């Protein structure tokens, strides 16, 4: 039974981690354009290192 002392906090902790990740992704606006995200995978973008791209490339 003593194993529960570790397992229950561990399972709750993992659950909380998942919850926190979801809340973060929600706040970061990842659900604002679901159709666009599905479509954009078809776009071939130039593969340039991030440092070489022009500034201001992120608009959320």
């Amino acid at each position, binding site marked *: 039974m003593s194993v529960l002392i570790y397992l*229950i906090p561990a399972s*709750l902790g993992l659950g909380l981690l998942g919850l926190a990740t979801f809340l973060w992704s929600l706040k970061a606006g990842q659900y604002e*354009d679901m159709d666009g995200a599905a*479509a*954009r995978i078809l776009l071939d973008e130039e593969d340039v290192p991030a440092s070489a791209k022009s500034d*201001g*490339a992120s608009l959320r």
Partner: protein
Amino acid sequence: MSCCSASVMVGPTDPPADDQPGAAVQDELWLESREIAPGQRLSELSVPTIHCVGCIRTIEEGLKAVPGVLDARVNLTAKRVSVQWEGSRAPALIETLKDLGYAAHPWQAAGEKKDEVLARLLRALAVAGFASSNIMLLSVSVWSGADAQARDIFHWISALIALPVLIYSGRIFYLSAWSALRRGHTNMDVPISIGISLAFCLSLYDTMRSGPHAYFDGVVMLLFFLLIGRTLDHVMRERTRSAVKGLARLASKGALVEKEDGTRAYLPVEEIQVGSRVIVAAGERIPVDARVLAGSSDLDAALVTGESDPQPVGPGAQLQAGTLNLTGPLTLEATATVQNSFLSEMVRLMEAAEAGRSTYRRIADRVSRLFAPTVHTLSFLSFLGWMVATGDPHRAITIAVAVLIITCPCALGLSVPMVQVVAARRLFDRGILLKDGGGLERMAEIDTVVFDKTGTLTLGRPVLQNRNGLDSDHLDLAAALAAHSRHPHSRALVDAHPTARPTAFIEVAERPGFGVEARLGEDVYRLGLPAWALADQAQQREVANKTVLSKNGKLLAAYSFIDPLRPEAAAALRDLQRKGLKLEILSGDHQAAVEALARKVGVSAWQARMRPADKTARLTALAEQGRKVLMVGDGLNDAPALAAAHVSMAPANAADVGRNAADLVFLGEGLDAVPEAFAVAKRSARLVRQNFALSFTYNAIALPFAILGFVTPLFASVAMSCSSIVVVANAMRLNRGARRRNPEASGTMSNSIRVNPEPVR
């Protein structure tokens, strides 16, 4: 906009100084952008015709190539583009998009806030989901026979998880229940709130006394399922609402006003006074009711009065707000402020019509009005019954709580929004936007359909007649000349002959109210009214109602135009009649035009020369006969009728007032959207009824067990999940057959690129 003629080679033209609609658009862009960093601004544009990955690429790459633009990002879901730019003037964003083939409009930044309600619902949903999965893990080990000591620990942990969730996620229901109670009535949230609170308190009490049963899992799962229903309902409403809001605006935001000292300023329309001198360039809408002081032009009043032919106007003419100035700049004197203009008049008529319409109560509300008191009574009765029978208050309360929990309307809460979300998605794929679920419910009840004529049954713009019988050399010349004009007939010529050979015209000039004139070598070509273009009187009479092309006053070709039926109009109307609906046409156009069209589409009931108030009166009369009317209309003059009807539908190129009044908006050109929407509404109504039947059956089976005291937390959890899953699965059946039709559906969406045949300015 001057970019229209970019593809035609022309000599030097000499546009009048006032003809700079682009400047006004850029002023408006500046007004509606917001500063995100020093020197950098962000504009949001609504582009209703974005629909695929190709559009994303074209638009983003096209905009990034404009000088001053730092970044552009398309949101496909909301059909909007955010553009980051720098500089003291807005870059030519709208013009660029127009060249790329997309109509775009500045998005009102002021009314735009991030959807706070949705974010709150999603957060509450996430928290409830986390809690219910973790409590369920603990509960499963309790059910599978944990010993008494471990069970107590698990119950305590469950209680610790459930309490914050009850406060955080349950708040949404508590607040709604409280506001309903305060106004003296009850809604579905009242039994939910009482149920979850009582169940939590009882379980906590049992946990303290090391009891065997706790309902923490049931409480949290209930919250989770109910929040899913709530969130879906909200998502569906907001999504289409924002798509509708983003379409073209009819009312001008501002206008160029000439002050007494001769200076000009771009002022918001609210600041225009009676007597102000307003300058309206070609391609702009008339901002307020006004009289023409100087200039002449043609006015497109199709959206305002329903008349299909453009009207020539000159000094002294009275103009109504909302009409479109087509060909020449006008100097106007305002005769009314914006509050007293025709447009606002329509809005007032509309509000009156809306107030007169019997309020429709949504089906879920009607059900919950019956449901909530029933649940309360049953629960209270079982408490009393067990008190009398056993005299054990703890036992009696446990059973009363079990009754509350088991009857709590999980499945009921999911049954309507789930069907409506699926239906809205189906309609969206077919290019039909549904503004709220209530519209879909009302759509299923209709027995009569009333159509407007101009712009609804017809396309509302002229098309060249007898295209193939015309001399193509002459058509080349005519199309090249027509490219310099905004007159609908010129547009139709260009559309009919997009591959015109470039012609090196010089001194091209538009004579407002008459036509276009240009020189080619020594010859003078004119395209326009016969009386102006032709020298010979006899010939003028011969082609009196046509548009002619002449060379040095001699007739080269005469063109006639018709306002064609929308694609599928006749078939759609037949389809509706076959489904047993009565059809009627109410139009503001003249008798002969309406009669001819009514005969062509096979509708026997029609009325012509209807003013907006007449249309509303007719709809009220129909409603008094007990008929449920679907009104399909596009014009400003239809807006009050749209508001008065039981349910209403408008094409996307309708006046925005009308579009806001309509419950459904269709993006494609085809009128087959009407029978399609009706069919989906009918099927949804059937599925909603089935879902209600399913959830009531579930209640009818589970309730006796609960009242007799056989319900354990395990039983409650299983029953609750099963009923919800059945309801959701049933709603999904609406999608059957949808995949097969998808190619067709995407065709409808791509047609919609031509939805706005005329620019807003």
